């Protein structure tokens, strides 16, 4: 360890943090957040409230509005900018969790997802060309507890027990406006007791050297698990516009720390501990996964290498060759796929055109037939008309003859020829 020396003049490396800061800002940040809980606990609303964006809006309704039969894992990405800093936020949602009648192993898809993200990162870390290493590991998992007021359900305990070693688990009490302050206190104590009883390791806030910060951290620790209320509707209260929920008996304000712990959650998650969450994910959970994975590989021998990625001891050139070959193969596959798609589309279009041509032809025939039918009809009518006319003329002639005959008769009568 080097000795600490005092400087005689100003060197200038005090600006290192600034340099780091500028570089990071240029690079932008990434954060992946997972929300888990039964449907109807207000997860989507809380996400919208936390980041003040409508991740789930009426055009793109959240998973809660769709009916699902099995647990799914869905990702949505959103890029938010604030003060020149941009954050690529990924929200991983788990619709269908705990909704079925039989919920055994409903946590398995979630565990698989987390592991697959770790594996992706491990693979990309082991490549020779590491320029682009996207970090899609789950940095934090918000677990929503239903506000029953009694304690944790068996499902809650099972889930947290299985995931506390893979991801930072932060339990939250959802829809906390159901509970009165006393009920909330009791409920929180009961939950913490059960968490300790089952030895569940939830995310722990780090101790720092700063006294001030320690006090804040201790205050947060006393309020665990945080009881939150989410809302994005704005209501007027005493002339102020606040976000809240309007009830006949009052307005529950989301950002009022007497009403719920939403502000604490937001400050903790975004303003103070986001980097720490990422660090813990990287240094603790990921390292656990990695060491377990590598130990398994070296124990099982060589043929697992092909299945689990390049973790072998090949020379870097050979690895590069392989990577290039892989890349070329991938490109070729993509090209073939695109060609296939293109062909299919062309075929479709040709078919469509043929169909429309046939349709037009048919219609043309139809119209011709109609026209002929009409023509025939008219002919028929004309014939009938002619017949009528000739009949009528005949009749007229007959009538006329009759009239003439009667007239002559009259004349003869008058003349007295017939008595």
């Amino acid at each position: 360890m080097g000795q600490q020396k005092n400087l005689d003049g100003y060197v200038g490396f005090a600006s290192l943090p600034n340099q780091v800061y500028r570089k990071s800002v240029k690079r932008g940040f990434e954060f992946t957040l997972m929300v888990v809980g039964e449907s109807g606990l207000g997860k989507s609303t809380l996400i919208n409230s936390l980041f003040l964006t409508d991740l789930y809006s009426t055009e793109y309704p959240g998973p809660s509005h769709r009916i699902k039969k099995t647990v799914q894992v869905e990702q949505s990405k959103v890029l938010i900018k604030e003060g020149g800093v941009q954050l690529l936020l990924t929200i991983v949602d788990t619709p269908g969790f705990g909704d079925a009648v039989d919920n055994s192993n409903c946590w398995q898809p979630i565990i698989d997802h987390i592991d697959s993200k770790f594996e992706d990162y491990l693979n990309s870390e082991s490549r020779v060309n590491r320029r682009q290493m996207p970090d899609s590991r789950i940095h934090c998992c918000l677990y929503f507890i239903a506000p029953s007021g009694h304690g944790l359900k068996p499902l809650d305990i099972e889930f947290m027990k299985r995931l506390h070693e893979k991801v930072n688990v932060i339990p939250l009490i959802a829809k906390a406006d159901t509970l009165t302050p006393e009920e909330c206190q009791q409920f929180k104590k009961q939950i913490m007791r059960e968490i300790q009883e089952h030895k569940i390791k939830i995310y722990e806030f780090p101790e720092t050297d700063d006294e001030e910060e320690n006090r804040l951290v201790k205050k947060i620790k006393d309020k665990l698990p945080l009881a939150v209320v989410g809302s994005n509707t704005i209501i007027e209260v005493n002339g102020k516009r606040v976000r809240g929920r309007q009830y006949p008996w009052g307005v529950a304000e989301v950002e009022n720390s007497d009403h719920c712990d939403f502000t604490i959650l937001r400050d903790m998650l975004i303003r103070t501990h986001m980097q720490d969450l990422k660090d813990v994910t990287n240094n603790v959970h990921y390292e656990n996964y990695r060491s377990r994975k590598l130990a398994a590989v070296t124990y099982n021998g060589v043929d697992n290498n092909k299945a689990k990625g390049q973790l072998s001891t090949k020379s870097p050139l050979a690895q590069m060759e392989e990577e290039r070959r892989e890349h070329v193969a991938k490109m070729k596959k993509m090209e073939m796929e695109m060609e296939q798609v293109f062909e299919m589309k062309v075929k479709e279009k040709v078919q469509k055109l043929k169909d429309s041509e046939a349709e037009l032809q048919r219609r043309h025939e139809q119209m011709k037939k109609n026209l002929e039918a009409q023509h025939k009809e008219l002919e028929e009518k004309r014939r009938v008309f002619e017949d009528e006319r000739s009949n009528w003329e005949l009749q007229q002639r007959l009538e006329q003859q009759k009239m003439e005959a009667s007239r002559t008769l009259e004349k003869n009568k008058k003349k007295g020829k017939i008595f």
Partner: protein
Amino acid sequence: MTKQHENHRDMNFSHTVLKQSGGSTLLGYIGIDTIIEQMRKKTMKTGFDFNIMVVGPSGLGKSTLVNTLFKSQVSRKSAGWSRDEKIPKTVEIKSVSHVIEEGGVKMKLTVVDTPGFGDQINNDNCWEPISKYINEQFEKFLKEEVNITRKKRIPDTRVHCCLYFIPPTGHSLRQLDVEFMKRLSHSVNIIPVIAKSDTMTVEERQEFKQRVRKELEMNGIEFYPQKEFDDDIEDKSDNDKIREMMPFAVVGSDKEYQVNGKRVLGRKTAWGIIEVENPNHCEFAQLRDFLIRSHLQDLKEVTHNIHYETYRAKRLNDNGGLHPITSNDTQESNL
């Protein structure tokens, strides 16, 4: 003279005894209407039974609601169990009985609780213990009825009403809710209730209710009051009004607070006091009136005339005649 008078008297007498089917006007006061008073006196002396079952996952305020409904500590929780009792591994059936009295009328109220329902990870067939319990009560009654020497008043332990608690997710019914209600709506009167409705704003509550009603209709679930048992137009219109409001969105509480100089039952939060009996806040008052003040007797009648009869017919048909299931020391009849 006297003979005439006698005849006249006789004629009068015969008129009053004669009963025309069209409902004739009586020529004098007989006192038939005092039968209501006689019934009332009898009922007050004997009292009556009412058995209510509450079903729903733990933490929905079932016990609190029952206490609030009957304004006394009648639920299982208050009979000595602690608040943070562990969730049982299987569905249990626990019943607690109390005798409450009001206005000289005694009621033996039995509250049947079902802890463990819907709380496990795997909730398959969690309705079976409940279905079995209901059928067991029917069986008990049937056996008593079929006895040669019957008791004067058969103790009625049949479940008259089942309050099913729907968690206020705000979205729709869960699979478990639909399964339970489908299977049990033919053996017991089910009244669905939205629990802890102070979670939802008024608009959310309306939307949720509509969605729940639509889903109930889609699945063919007939909750009480069932449309097919409406006797006449008046009944139908009354019941239609009630059916429009169901499921009732309720809030329960056994604590009192001071609001505008009155003491009301309510829940105190940091942003206001939720009054349980205020119809603008929640629908508890409507549920109570419906359940106790207007349809209590009807619930018992539907249970006795329809659900019990269905069970009885099935049992008699199945056995081709009723054979006693277990031979007791009491004499059984062989039908």
